[in-house]
């Protein structure tokens, strides 16, 4: 039997013995955490089974086959978990990981600021130690999930005299406190999944520092690498199981509240899955020019998927996790734009409409106005190209103007609107 068949048989047997659709959502997910089947690619001592990532798909298929609900694993929570697994102390892992998997805690990533987005290391939100705890002041922006997060990953400056990459530290911050104000921001697609976050003497307990003071940049790179790699997983966001039973109702309620602001996420990836069926249903597939664009899109999307598989296969052979996530992220921007073009071609004049007047009850319009996020969120295409050229191809770095003590580095004037 191959590894895959063996693992499939194991999951199937475990599910047969344990899956109970009358369990509570949190109760069931705790059971998953204990069994290691919720996140089989995590280490055995931390809720996983130490299995290769490549087997996840097979395992998820076995779950789907019996309608078993999985752990809460979409969104920023998984970036937090990956960061904690790599850089957190045992105490951090004990305190945070389980509740990430059960869905009890939501997380957000407090990196971007009005003055520093691509140039994350230019963060000016400050954390000062007052002898007992860290005191935080400043502003973050574009913070996805901040409005319902229990915890945040925050990158803050703790030393202004060191060069900019060295003066940053990485904390876990309790989002439910008086010193934090969260204001939702409305996006061009009408949704509000990101926010601006103001810190006024917000506090962080000393044990919530990850690594040492000054490790902030290194740790943030871990978070970002995982974010880029996850770029192609966006398509599966918040799909309803369509099944009946109390645990599914609970899951639906979770989707409705927690995932509601993100229900446009699959659309931002372009919804390639809709292209061929829509082209056939509308009859536009007869148009030779559209056929060309459609083929271009489907081929690109297929090749992008294979490229991600190749990168994973290489990793499993022991090659280090490298900047290949940037290639995947760049590919997903291409796919999203190509999809937008094809959907416009298929919908014709209907592309001018939105909401209930737009095809598929607004989904098509939502694709057209959500795709631009793909090439910005998680690091812009330009930044990915910098990373690829410098770290994969080994090309020259650009001359920089931001050396020396951070205090003296040129910065954006004031706060942007």
């Amino acid at each position, binding site marked *: 039997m191959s590894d895959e068949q063996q693992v499939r048989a194991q999951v199937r047997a475990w599910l047969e013995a344990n899956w109970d659709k009358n369990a509570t959502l949190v109760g069931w997910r705790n059971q998953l955490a204990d069994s290691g089947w919720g996140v089989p690619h995590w280490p055995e001592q931390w809720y996983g089974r130490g299995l290769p990532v490549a087997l996840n798909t097979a395992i998820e298929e076995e779950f789907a086959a019996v309608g078993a609900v999985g752990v809460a694993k979409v969104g920023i929570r998984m970036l937090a978990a990956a960061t904690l697994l790599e850089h957190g102390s045992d105490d951090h892992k004990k305190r945070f990981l389980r509740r990430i998997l059960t869905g009890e805690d939501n997380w957000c990533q407090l990196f971007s600021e009005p003055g520093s987005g691509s140039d994350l290391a230019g963060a000016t939100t400050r954390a000062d130690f007052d002898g007992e705890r860290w005191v935080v002041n400043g502003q973050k922006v574009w913070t996805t999930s901040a409005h319902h997060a229990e915890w945040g990953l925050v990158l803050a400056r703790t030393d202004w005299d060191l060069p900019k990459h060295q003066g940053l530290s990485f904390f876990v911050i309790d989002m439910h406190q008086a010193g934090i104000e969260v204001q939702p921001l409305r996006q061009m697609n009408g949704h509000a999944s990101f926010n601006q976050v103001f810190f006024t003497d917000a506090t962080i307990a000393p044990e919530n520092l990850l690594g040492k003071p000054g490790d902030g940049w290194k740790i943030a790179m871990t978070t970002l690498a995982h974010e880029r790699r996850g770029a192609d997983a966006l398509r599966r966001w918040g799909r309803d199981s369509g099944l009946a039973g109390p645990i599914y109702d609970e899951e639906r309620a979770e989707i409705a509240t927690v995932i509601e602001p993100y229900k446009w996420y699959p659309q931002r990836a372009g919804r390639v899955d809709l292209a061929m069926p829509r082209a056939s249903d509308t009859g536009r597939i007869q148009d030779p020019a559209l056929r060309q664009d459609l*083929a271009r899109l489907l081929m690109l999307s297929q090749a992008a998927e294979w490229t991600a598989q*190749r990168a994973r296969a290489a990793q499993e052979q022991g090659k280090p996790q490298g900047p290949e996530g940037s290639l995947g992220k760049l590919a997903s921007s291409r796919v999203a734009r190509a999809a937008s073009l094809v959907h416009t071609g298929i919908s014709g004049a209907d592309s001018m409409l939105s909401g209930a007047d737009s095809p598929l009850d607004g989904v098509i319009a939502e694709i057209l106005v959500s795709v631009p996020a793909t090439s910005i969120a998680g690091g812009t295409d330009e930044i990915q190209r910098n990373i690829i050229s410098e770290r994969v191809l080994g090309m020259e770095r650009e001359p920089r103007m931001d050396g020396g003590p951070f205090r003296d580095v040129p910065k954006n004037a004031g706060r942007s609107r």
Partner: protein
Amino acid sequence: MQFILTDEQTQFRDAVQRFLRDKSPTTEVRRLMETEEGFDRQVWEQMCGDLGLAGIHIPEAYGGLGFGMVELGIVMEEMGQALYCSPYFASAVLAANVILLGADERHRELLLPGIAAGTRIATLAVTEPDGRWDEGGITLTARPAADGFTLDGTKKFVLDGCIANTVIVAARLAAGGIALLLVDGDAEGLTRRSLNTLDDTRKLAELNFSGVQATLLGPPTEASAALARGGDLSTIALANEMVGGAQALLDSAVDYAQMRMQFGRLIGSFQSIKHKCAEMLLDVELAKSAAYYAAEAAAEDDPELPALASLSKALASEVYMATAAECIQIHGGIGFTWDQDTHLWFKRAKSSEVFLGDANFHRERYIQCLEATA
């Protein structure tokens, strides 16, 4: 799908690479492209004899090594990277594939051992002056004669058609349908003209048939399927060759950008150059993924072979050509000279872009495949 080479396959790739690096430097490519034959017989004999590459995917029963499409893909990719000049693609790929699929046992035994050994150079003649790559373009006629058939008509864009001693001809039967026929390179009534090619590393010929004697290669009932499937396999092999060439161009562009100074800095430190290279890498990686996937699928007899062949070729066509154009751009003026090597790959990119069907053709074919399975 694995996307992982075994240790043996990796060693095999290294061996092929070493051989080609040694035997096919661009000085040799330049020497050979000026000759009429277009290849070096001694190197060819070594390649077929010592390494057995011409029989890599031919079963052992017919004198080959008995490996599959993945190994053939490896050979093709390395040959594309090195721009190796020889009748390999005509004989070991185009002709051998069709013989394996469409010839009767007697002809397989007659032809394949020589092809594998490199002593017989075969080619496949399908395309005619109208340049169509599919069966519909075949008008050359085969009429029954005393012992076999008589062929009349013209084939064009025949790869290595002037040096081949065996020509497999796709012809239309008077009774309807097509047949694959075997013709000797020096048969009476066959006139061969070497075409002036844009890409001198790949020789093309026009073949005129006037009452040429031919024998059936195999049963005409199987000709159409053999031609189609053989064409798909060869298209996938070509896509693998093309991604090897594209990689060579990307490497050359990055190396030059890391060496050339302007405005007091390396041009490789300018973002417009770096970003171009990043896009080229993404292009090449996407095209490689498709070519590798298709080769593995072919080795495993995937029913979606036609769609995968078209997918891999459409991407390879676009990517190879785009990479070639950008590579010249990054080299600046020197990139436009005869002495600098980039144009050798640029021209191969152009000829490969259209050979066996261009990207538009394969995109259309891909959609047709999807419609047929929907």
